[in-house]
């Protein structure tokens, strides 16, 4: 009898201990961010398009998630992990799974090189997950470079016209002088 009481008591203790275990609903969440093929190499000022994939099979109710996108320049000296050069926050309602396309614009003054897209997903409780993907910012056509070519073209045109006119006029004057 006493043995049975001990067994029942230990079962209760075991069950009770499960109740106090820190179960987290976010434990089984699967997150992924994939940058679209056409956005893996872009020019500053363009959009980075990407796909966010959220799988949350253990979630039974509709949850509001705060999703933050950040573009980080790892080469920047500002801080240990690089500096955030662009960010955007959106809200998404998720039940068990969702997959959506989104974009963020890379600032025009961004330097060329590797950039990191960081996606931070939070709910209003204890969920806080970060996922990353990288892409390249190419050296774009510089506006000043374009101005320079236009200026050179215009100047070339002017110089050719002036030289040709002077040449023709000097020949005409020579002819008059010879007469």
């Amino acid at each position, binding site marked *: 009898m006493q043995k049975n009481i001990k067994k029942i008591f230990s079962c209760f203790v075991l069950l009770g201990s499960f109740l106090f275990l820190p179960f987290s609903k976010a434990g089984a969440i699967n997150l992924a961010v994939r940058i679209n093929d056409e956005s893996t190499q872009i020019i500053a000022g363009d959009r980075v398009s990407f796909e966010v994939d959220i799988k949350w099979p253990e979630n039974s109710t509709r949850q509001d998630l705060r999703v933050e996108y950040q573009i980080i320049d790892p080469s920047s000296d500002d801080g240990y992990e690089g500096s955030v050069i662009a960010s955007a926050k959106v809200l998404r309602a998720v039940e068990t799974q969702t997959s959506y396309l989104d974009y963020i614009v890379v600032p025009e003054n961004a330097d060329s090189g590797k950039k990191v897209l960081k996606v931070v997903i939070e709910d209003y409780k204890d969920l806080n997950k970060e996922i990353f993907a990288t892409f390249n910012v190419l050296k774009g056509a510089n506006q000043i470079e374009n101005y320079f070519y*236009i200026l050179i073209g*215009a100047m070339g045109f002017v110089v050719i*016209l002036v030289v040709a006119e002077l040449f023709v*006029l000097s020949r005409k*004057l020579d002819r*008059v002088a010879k007469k």
Partner: protein
Amino acid sequence: MNYLNTLIPIVTLASEFIQHAFGIVHAGFIITIFLSQIMGEKKAGAKKHEHADLLILLAMVTIVGAWRITEYFSNFEDPWYQIFINLPATFFVIFFASHLVSHYKKSFSKQIYNQLVWLLVINFFIDIAYRILYPVGAMGALESGVQAIQTINLYFFVMHYLHLSSKNEIKNAKKH
């Protein structure tokens, strides 16, 4: 449409550069010749009006230069700009040009003069259209293009005038 949007700033910019470059070339030529006349000896057989004509030529080029500069600082849709700048500038340039041509009536290329007058008149109306009726980029590019052609034409006018003036000088020198 996208192609046009790319082309408009390029055309505008190139036209502006051409205008500025020719403006400097005009002024440079005339100032050099004017200074050489003042500082040099009085040429034999030089007519009285030649000195004054160079001044008029210089005034003409200065008016065109100042006109282009004023354009940048004037307010869009400002009727006073049209009344006090655009209209008088067009009038004075045509008036000065006709005055200069009158001294070389027979030998001066009528074609260059007519083109200059037409371009000035067209530019005047395009400016009104661009600033008041259709303030769109394409119209601005068109105006810049017309102004660039007009500046090139003014350059040919100036060079043609200087050529005729030099030709006369040579002929007069031979006579004396």
